[in-house]
């Protein structure tokens, strides 16, 4: 046996060179082990598959049952809501809860305010988030990492901590009970900057270099190269922003005095009663009406959102 043969003998066999593997792709031992495990999970056990589906059904119920109860409660009379045992269908059917909400609370005003606040905040946050992230990802300047650290640090400060100082500042500008008073302090975008910067850094450098070689300007590269490749993450960021701003309560509550600028979550509290008697049917009807726009937006964009959230989770 030559020295070369001795060395070869000491090493593990080259992947794909074993008997009966002439047409098989080259696999390492680790890859073969992983493949075997996958085979067990997906080919071997119908029990495992049933378990998987049972898990999915359980998760579905976990999310669906509360939603179902909100919807059916919105169509129940007060007595039916408290029936014992719980009724799974409205009896009698009480759609008048919805007309009560629309007449009793200025729902149209609150809805209009919510749309204005959410739309402006979403546009501003997405625009600022993308621009900040783009700069932090691709511009080289002194203190860049420090700026990014500050952005992340601001994520660690709970909103409640800065509420009073923000209130004082905004009130001193005479912005109480105005849209700008509600919107401007909420327009900071640390989360979006963080999310988009990390995504931008995961883009292939070659594409950026190619754009540079083609003479594409820095700004044009963002719109023609970077954003088209970032669509899923951008949609996820937009959706998260929309839902967050739609549900804002504390700051708009402190800032708004009347239904001229107050959003829906504040309008909802008008239907609840302290020391009196809350009729939960209309409260749930208003909750359904408040949730509906978010649900529609999510259903339209869910595929993109899931893509965005899992982007980078699998190395391609």
């Amino acid at each position, binding site marked *: 046996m030559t020295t070369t043969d001795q060395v070869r003998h000491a090493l593990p066999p080259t992947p794909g060179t074993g008997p009966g593997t002439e047409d098989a792709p080259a696999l390492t031992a680790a890859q073969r082990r992983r493949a075997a495990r996958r085979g067990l999970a997906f080919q071997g056990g119908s029990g495992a598959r049933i378990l998987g589906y049972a898990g999915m059904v359980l998760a579905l119920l976990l999310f669906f049952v509360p939603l179902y109860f909100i919807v059916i409660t919105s169509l129940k009379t*007060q*007595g039916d*809501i*408290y029936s*014992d045992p719980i009724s799974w269908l409205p009896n009698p059917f009480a759609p008048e809860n919805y007309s009560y909400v629309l007449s009793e609370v200025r729902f149209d005003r609150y809805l209009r305010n919510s749309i204005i606040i959410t739309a402006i905040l979403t546009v501003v946050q997405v625009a600022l988030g993308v621009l900040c992230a783009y700069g932090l990802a691709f511009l080289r300047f002194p203190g860049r*990492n*420090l700026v*990014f*650290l*500050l952005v*992340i*640090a*601001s994520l*660690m*400060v709970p909103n409640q*901590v*800065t*509420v*009073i*100082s*923000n*209130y*004082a*500042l*905004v*009130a*001193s500008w005479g912005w*109480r009970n105005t849209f700008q008073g509600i919107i401007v302090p909420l327009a900071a975008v640390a989360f979006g900057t963080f999310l988009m910067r*990390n995504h931008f850094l995961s883009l292939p450098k070659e594409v950026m270099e190619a754009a540079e070689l083609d003479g594409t300007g820095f700004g044009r590269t963002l719109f023609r190269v970077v954003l088209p490749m970032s669509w899923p993450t951008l949609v996820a960021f937009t959706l998260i922003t929309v839902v967050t701003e739609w549900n804002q309560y504390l700051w708009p*509550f*402190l800032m*708004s*005095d*009347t*239904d001229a600028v*107050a959003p829906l979550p*504040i309008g909802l*509290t*008008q239907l*609840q*009663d*302290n*020391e*009196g*008697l*809350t*009729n*939960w049917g209309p409260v749930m009807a208003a909750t359904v009406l408040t949730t509906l726009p978010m649900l529609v937006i999510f259903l339209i964009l869910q595929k993109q959102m899931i893509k965005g959230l899992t982007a980078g989770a699998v190395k391609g």
Partner: protein
Amino acid sequence: MTFSRRSLLGLAGAGSAALALGACAGGETSAGSGGGGEEGDGTIQFWSNHPGSSKDVEQAIIDLWNEENPDTPATLVDGGANYEELGQKFNAALAGGGLPDLIVASDVTWFNFAFTGATTPLDDLWTEAGVDADDIVDTLREDYNYDGKHYGMPFSRSTTLMYFNSDVLGEAGLPTDRGPETWDEFAEWAPRIMDANGGQPALVVPDGSNYLDWYFQGMIWTFGGAYSTEWTPSFTEQGSLDAATFLQEQVAAGHIQIAADANNTFAIGNASGLLQSTGSLGGLTDSAEFPFLTTYLPGPTPGACTGGAGVAVPDGISDERKVNAVRFADFLTNTANTITFSQATGYMPVRKSALEDPEEATYLEENPNAMTAIRQLNENTAPQDNARVFVSGGGQRIGAGLDRIAIGGEDVAAVMEDLQNETQEVIDRDITPNL
């Protein structure tokens, strides 16, 4: 991005910097005002949480005011979903400006505002605005007396009441013109009431998140206990322990149910009795599908406490705004308007003249349930204990403790010991140094 130990330290430093920057923004955060106080825009801002679903009736009264006073119009501001939220909003305004002219201040918030100088004493303003303070029901007016000055005017004032399903009491062969005279008598009545209503609880009481601490206060007094005597907590006294033990036993026996939404539980017949505020009378009258009576809380006297809310004027606004605010508060609670308000909500009229008004007398005669609270005010109530209403966070702290006893079934002595120590700690920290 990977984090080394150095970059993590940097991150911590940056976090501190961000916090410091956040804290630097804004102005001073003291209550009170310097140099004449904050000027308004000529409109009286009334911040209310609309107790007892009173938004419409409040607005109607404001509309009347605006007709009569076009130069100083008032506007109704949604101050929050409850007294606590209104307190938060007012605290933000104290720190940041944009103070209202008049706020609803509840039995548990008015004192802290007065104590910190956030709201102004009203006595001189009453004189200046021509308010007849003697016409205000004495007990209710004196509830806002601190250090010889009054810091609030009664507005939506209540006492705790017992509500009983008359049909069930009749079915059980019990009197239908009165409630139990003592808690021991209630314990005797309870099984009969339950039998007459298919085993449903004899009494439902709101939980600790919904002022169980307020309802239990009358019960603790009748057992010889109290939350406190002046500024000395008395949770661990034998009478207090006996009352808490009684509550726990009654809940365990199924006689009393502690519920988050007690009003609805009673209104749909899932309990035969209810311990609630006078302010619930309007809503229950509209929604209950059976006849019910209101009764005093069990004795021995006093077995109930006053509650609800008054209105207070911020100290940080200009003198002119203060006088206008008091004029408006006087209008809001005058004879005609307190009658309107009380008939719409169930709260008590707050003026003596209202009780002498012929129309109101007729109304009360026709609606004996509304009369119960007024009579009980003179015969069976006492002002609340300091530990609940004057010690910061008192109500919520006691409510949470009572939940542990009644719902959690925890050891009574241990929970009351905790309440004793926690209350004493807050008194030593916040009250004693300033007395």
